């Protein structure tokens, strides 16, 4: 080959030429048995430890769950719980005794948990006005808040079904006759408080209608400080959900008994939803949920088993790759 030839060849090798001729340098991984086994083993070796670690984190969380909706209704009203909860004249207080079975380190998070409550129903989700929450009565395009938009021809602030159905059970915690301090600040997302709920927007004409949904709001506190409302208005993902109520900032010892005085105001009886009170510590991973860890272990061990099966089959059926007997157009002849 002469010099000019070589030069021409080199020019041909330029990136663009390779691009147009579809001969760009490429990585072409092939699933050879070695790779397959390696990948399976690798996945297994990563997933099982990760699973065990997360499982441990989940197990380290101490959680007390107490369902109170059924037992907080006096015996006499148990047949018609709905009318009990709707009747304002009947006192709704109720006491629950929670026994701490394991040391709980502060902060202990208090959640209320509702079941069978479709906060993610389309009608419910859409029935709010983010603009109004931010700008208050100045904002008029609140048609999305139907059917809770006006009352007596006055706009409702905050409007919409979500706000109207605000959860209004309250909890008081007493340990050994002393009230546990519950911090109810900073339970909502910071961005919500700062940017979604107006600092100068005050509740107006709220729960003044004939039909009263859930909790009422103090009209003197701006929406951005109404953290219960803010938490409630963060729509839950699934029909069974927990929402943050507050934090106990004291440790709880084993065998401590916490007495909960609660007001059982909120109606879940008409749709037979459960109400639960949850006290939980947290780990680096969050709350108590073994599922993730188990899933990791399951996937990890599956891939180990697959690696094993593959390896056995591979050794059992040794066969050169030149064999074309299984090519689809050859297979038919075998079966004939």
């Amino acid at each position, binding site marked *: 080959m002469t010099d000019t030839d070589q030069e021409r060849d080199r020019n041909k090798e330029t990136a663009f030429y390779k691009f147009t001729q579809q001969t760009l340098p490429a990585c072409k991984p092939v699933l050879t048995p070695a790779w397959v086994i390696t990948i399976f083993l690798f996945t297994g070796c990563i997933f099982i430890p990760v699973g065990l670690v997360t499982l441990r984190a989940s197990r380290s969380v101490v959680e007390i769950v107490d369902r109170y909706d059924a037992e907080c209704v006096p015996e006499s009203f148990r047949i018609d719980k709905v009318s009990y909860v709707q009747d304002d004249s009947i006192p709704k207080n109720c006491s629950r005794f929670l026994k701490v079975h394991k040391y709980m380190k502060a902060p202990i998070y208090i959640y209320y948990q509702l079941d069978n409550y479709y906060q993610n129903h389309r009608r419910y989700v859409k029935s709010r006005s983010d603009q109004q929450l931010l700008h208050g009565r100045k904002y008029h395009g609140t048609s999305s808040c139907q059917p809770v938009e006006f009352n007596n021809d006055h706009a409702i602030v905050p409007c919409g*079904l979500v706000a109207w159905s605000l959860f209004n059970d309250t909890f008081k915690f007493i340990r050994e006759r002393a009230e546990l301090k519950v911090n109810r600040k900073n339970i909502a997302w910071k961005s919500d408080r700062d940017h979604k709920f107006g600092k100068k927007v005050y509740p107006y004409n709220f729960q003044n209608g004939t039909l009263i949904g859930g909790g009422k709001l103090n009209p003197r506190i701006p929406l951005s400080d109404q953290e219960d409302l803010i938490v409630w208005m963060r729509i839950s993902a699934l029909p069974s959900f927990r929402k943050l109520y507050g934090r106990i900032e004291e440790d709880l010892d084993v065998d401590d008994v916490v007495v909960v005085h609660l007001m059982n105001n909120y109606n879940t009886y008409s749709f037979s939803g459960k109400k639960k009170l949850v006290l939980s510590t947290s780990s680096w991973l969050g709350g108590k949920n073994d599922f993730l860890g188990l899933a990791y272990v399951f996937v990890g061990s599956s891939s180990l088993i697959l690696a094993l099966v593959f390896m056995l089959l591979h050794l059992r059926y040794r066969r050169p790759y030149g064999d074309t007997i299984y090519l689809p157009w050859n297979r038919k002849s075998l079966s004939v």
Partner: protein
Amino acid sequence: MEMTRVRKRSIHLSKLYSLACFRPTPTDEHAQIGQKGYSRVVYCNEPDCQEQIRLNYRGNYVSTTKYTAVNFIPKSLFEQFRRVANIYFLVAACVSFSPLAPYSAPSLLVPLIVVIGATMAKEGVEDWRRRLQDVEANNRKVEVYDKRSCSFRESKWKNLRVGDLVKVHKDEYFPADILLLSSSYEDGVCYVDTMNLDGETNLKLKHALEVTSSLHDAEMLKEFRAVIKCEDPNEHLYSFVGTLHYDCQQYPLALQQILLRDSKLKNTDYIYGVVIFTGHDTKVMQNATDPPSKRTRIERRMDKIVYVLFSTLILVSFIGSLFFGIETKKDISGANYRRWYLRSDKTTVFYDPRRASLSGFFHFLTGLMLYGYLIPISLYVSIEIVKVLQSIFINQDRAMYDEETDRPAHARTSNLNEELGQVSTILSDKTGTLTCNSMEFVKCSIAGTAYGRGMTEVEIALARKRGERLPEPMPIDDVDSGTSVKGFNFRDERIMNGQWVKEPHSDVIQKFFRVLATCHTAVPEKTESGEIVYEAESPDEAAFVIAAKEVGFQFFVRNQTSIKLHELDLVSGKSVERVYKLLHVLEFSSARKRMSVIVRNPENQLLLLAKGADSVIFERLAKHGRAFEAQTKEHIDRYSEAGLRTLAIAYRELDDDDEYRLWEEEFMKAKTYLTADQDVLVDELADRIERDLILLGATAVEDKLQKGVPDCIDKLAKARIRIWVLTGDKKGTAINIGYACSLLRHGMKQIVITLESPEIEALEKRGDKEATAKASLASVAQQICDGKSQVARELLTGEPPAEFGLIIDGKSLTFALDKSLVNRFMDLAMDCATVICCRSSPKQKALVTRQVKSVTSKTTLAIGDGANDVGMLQEADIGVGISGVEGMQAVMASDFSIGQFRFLERLLLVHGHWCYRRIAMMICYFFYKNITFGFTLFWFEAYASFSGQPAYNDWYMSCYNVFFTSLPVIALGVFDQDVSARLCLKHPLLYQEGVQDILFNWLRILGWMFNGVLSSIIIFFLTTNSITGQAFRRDGQVADYAVLGVTMYTCVVWAVNCQMALSINYFTWIQHLFIWGSIALWYIFLMVYGSLPPTLSTTAYKVLVEACAPSVLYWITTLLVVISTLLPLFSYRAFQIRFRPMEHDRIQILRSEGLEQEHDTAQRLSESPESPETRISSDLISIRIDNLRASPRRKNS
């Protein structure tokens, strides 16, 4: 084919030599002038006169665009919404303004607008290109007569009006349909090249009326006034009816006086003419019809899949609305509202528990929109983009670039790319496709002595087949160090350089070459350098004249009465001029198979010089003219065995007596006779004089094979593509060429179906057409049966069964394609590896193509280069035109054009295979990703009491198809390759993946869909169970609707992109960029979108930055979900590749184990022959495959 071509030319020649008696005669049609259909009136040279203006004929402006600036928007929109899927999305977008919509209207509209906009932009660009071509044509210049200044002025084509007088110069195109008035020749003739109209390369002679042929100078034209009344614009290229009113007389006009737009003036300095039809009224524009639009198999199946998805959509929506209805109905029991927080007491119809069934119905509509993600909105536009890019790669491929003609491969339509990977039958033309159609005079036999020492490629191939050892193959192309002449490849020192005078029969040799130099219809033309080139219609003829010239009989002038030669004078040894008076031409026709001229030589001898098929000439020899018959016959046999085209050469001395004069008189009379049986009469008279010939010898012309044809066909055969050759040649030639290009191989058994049996010929002679037809049909049926049983026997006994080649001639084909036989015939043909149809007409070619297509119901590809292949190209699923010498007609009708036949190998095995694989994978993947996404929405619905609340933010969803998943798919569709080009060519069997459609069968499609459903289940359930319920961060916050949406969406984006990475195994930086870039884009999008004010970003506000990113659970869940979705596919692939590998898997593994070289040298290797080792190994493999072969063709029987 050659026959038809020659025939057409002979028509013009008959005119050439009977000019004296030429008079257009009024026909019956002329009586209709002025009536309906014949109402056009043209005032010649008076385009401004009142009458002409009142008629208001269209101008010469031509527009071939589909759209105009005004109608582009509505018309292209209309085109777009003819697609079912697009209509669905349009309706969905309209409904999205109603409260039914689960999403906000803009989030539905934007993707639709993007998609429709992209398609419209593509249409617009294509149309713009057409417009540029139009503009170029409309602004070409032509000289128009200006009466005021009495001179010709340049004008643009588009300004031409009916009635204008124009002057067209040599080699210019005619701007409109023009009536020829006069030309630079005194008698008003001109030559026209009609290649653009009918693809014929021969020149056609046009002739002006005698009364106008004297109009020569501008002054005379000033006074010229005439009126033409003629037919209305129509599409018939071969007829014209009109009259010229001039000087108070009427003259009938015929096609002879009409010069059609898009044809070219040749061999004539200039012509004058009157514009009759302009612009869209011209015949060529009237002829322009849209080529049949072809859709690919994959696209048709894709439509079915879209229907399946639509059904799924309806089913899923129905299930959703059913549950919704039930749930809603339960909301009221007596006076109590169950879910009081929904305020069912104060509700609209959409959620009204008292009208639950109606709510359910409305919810069904909502569902149709919500699950609309099952239908991939961007599928069509993505496929179109991908196909255009694929075509660009095909066009750019240097390995398919023909340096000789400077033509790259060209994908003329981009929507058939993947069909290239599924071709099961190739129907090929022979001349110009397999062979070059450049005839070379290589051998001759004169006076019983064979001359010509070269060895043809066919001979070499034949020798190789027989296993003979060849002497060093002579490089045929570069003979005698560069003095090679096109069309002449004759080497024999006994003849060349005037040595022939020393040969024993030098007088015969002299006569022989004189016949070659005079008995033809070529026209000489002097080039600027003084060389003489010949314009002949068939390349055979040119080869003869060139051969005569090279030997020393230079033909240099032809006029209507004489032919002049430069010859070597035997006595003086000098070149002298000899004039032969040309008296008559007895033209060539396929029936006569011969041509002769009657000339008077300078010695005043009257001679009849003849050339023709050996069979015809031999039976007409005089007793004393058979001196060399035996040897010549032997030579002819040997030549035709070598794939050469042979003609016998003979002459006769005529007596200048009364007998001849009598014959001449009768002949002249017959020629002017204007009845239907004129031809028969002329033939009969010609037959009477072409007798008692004296044989001189025979010629052998090589129809050169194109470069690389045998190797290419060999590869295609190894890819198990069936090849049919449809040719106009005779049986012997066709079989020889078949051997030469390895269509027929050694050890192949031939089944020949022919009607050349004595009984049928006898019947034919008797002229009993009905009986002949009946007997022929029976005979063909019998032969087909015999062939079938032969094949059956072979399959039973043969070890291994031999392959079969079927050879059938045109006449038998007519009967074989008869309704009663066609199935049996196709059955037999499908059992044969090679089928050669010889002597077939263009119509038969198209018919055969249609039959093959319908019987096999597999993809057919037709390849050809001439106008006679157009029917075949359009009929086949894919038409490939060879942009060779035979004009552009075939290329214009084709879907792909290539410069050489051998590029077909790369076009099919490499590009076809790639494109098929890419499109198939792409579509499967498209459905996968949309099903994955759509079904997560459905699962979420189940947890939102089917209320129609989408799981994700509106804008995440609209961006799904457009941003986060589209680019990798396009990269897959454009760049993916399972194996490199070199390996594609080395393992032609890989091609069967496309033919058998194993990458796009229903099992695979459903498999991908199942995978999609599986992925969605894994994503939804793993995510919800992992992150909801408990606190998902250390600070005790719980995951809400927004967080779940983001997490699930993250998993979907990761999963579908990683599935893509898993299912391809070809990563260049492009793939990496697109796949990982798409995932990165999602996070970037989330950050940007999340930082917008909360009123715009709603649930996405700071969701990544504030909520998800700080949560370990979010990341760890993503990892779990993504790996879990990949595991099923990965395991399947791992086991399938190891235990049920497909061909491409096998090759990939071979490559990865280093058994196959891949890089490299691909270029160099494809040019040099395979090394012996690789050839042996691939042969071994193919033999093994043959042993195991399950002949898929048997399925059809």
